[in-house]
């Protein structure tokens, strides 16, 4: 506990690459949850010990594939209701996961535990610059309340510039 400021947690964690179970990296982090104003995201500082895997090749393959599509990408239900993700949709799924991490961080308190449950809908947004842009409608599962929360987010991505959530908004349930 820190005075009138909030509560700080020191964490030691292991990051595991979802696509490569042997790829683990140690990480330390400090998370400060602010007292009072629950509309402020917690402060996070972290140190990764070692290096994350280089994904340039796979990133470029995905980037080029999307750029060469004749029509803007549109898809629904990823994973589908039976847990399947087609190989073509796997990068779209992973991108949503990274982007939802930002949304989750911005909306987390000491009493929430969010997971991405499903992409309900994703539609590519045409751009004149070199970025890829996707408009996602996702479902977040909040473990403590057990709520399934629809959330819309606009995601920019580029192999060298990484992921950015430019706009997001919680949607009504019904």
């Amino acid at each position, binding site marked *: 506990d820190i005075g009138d400021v909030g509560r700080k947690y020191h964490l030691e964690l292991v990051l595991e690459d*979802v696509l490569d179970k042997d790829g683990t990296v140690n990480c330390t982090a400090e998370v400060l949850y602010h007292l009072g104003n629950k509309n402020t995201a917690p402060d996070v500082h972290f140190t990764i010990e070692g290096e994350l895997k280089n994904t340039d090749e796979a990133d470029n393959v995905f980037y080029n594939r999307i750029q060469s599509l004749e029509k803007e990408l549109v898809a629904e239900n990823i*994973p589908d209701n039976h*847990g399947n993700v087609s190989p073509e949709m796997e990068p779209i799924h992973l991108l949503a996961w990274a982007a939802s991490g930002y949304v989750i961080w911005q909306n987390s308190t000491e009493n929430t535990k969010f997971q991405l449950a*499903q992409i309900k809908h994703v539609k590519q947004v045409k751009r004149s610059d070199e970025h890829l842009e996707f408009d996602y409608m996702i479902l977040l*599962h909040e*473990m403590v*309340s057990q*709520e*399934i929360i629809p959330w819309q987010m606009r995601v920019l991505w580029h192999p060298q510039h990484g992921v950015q959530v430019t706009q997001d908004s919680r949607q009504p349930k*019904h």
Partner: protein
Amino acid sequence: IASDYGKDPSITSLLNKMDIFLLTVTNPDGYVFTHTTNRMWRKTRSKNPGSLCVGVDPNRNWDAGFGGPGASSNPCSDSYRGPSANSEVEVKSVVDFIKNHGNIRAFLTLHSYSQLLMYPYGYKCTEPADYAELDAVGKAAASSIKSLYGTTFTVGSICTTIYQASGGSIDWSYDYGIKYSFAFELRDTGRYGFLLPANQIIPTAEETWLGLKKIMEHVRDNPY
């Protein structure tokens, strides 16, 4: 269970001593609804008078700390506790069955997801009287589960492991006198969450069975 009787000595002695009642779907209306309309539906499908919202969270509707923290009084919430304890027929029929049987020795309930093996309490954060034994049995069961495919389960009380939640089934069964009350949260830990791929169904069942068997053997060997 059936095919190992007469072959596996442990299952044979278990079934010679005790009956196993297996309720495969505890919320059939909700189950159908996930197939026809909303894959993420959690609750029952009962109408809530005065509300447009449907359904009650069946695992907040038991008579254990009912109305307490960790359950909602809002019918539109996914953790709506219902108008009163046992208001849901899905819950009341299990309660009535257990009371009428009169000799139930263990109550094991399977959920998803998170890979947890939990004992009471959820409605309060104090230890149950049998904490030490339940924790030991839980840890032994988790160890059995892990032995097959390496799947790790975290063991602990509901309150300390996930969250405080009132009106839960194993809290009711434990306070009713059924000492061996455990709740499992099965695979995975969030990558697919509720959308576990079909190719994981059988491995999940195989490893979970080892955990259930471990607990049932302990129940068989420790009459009370």
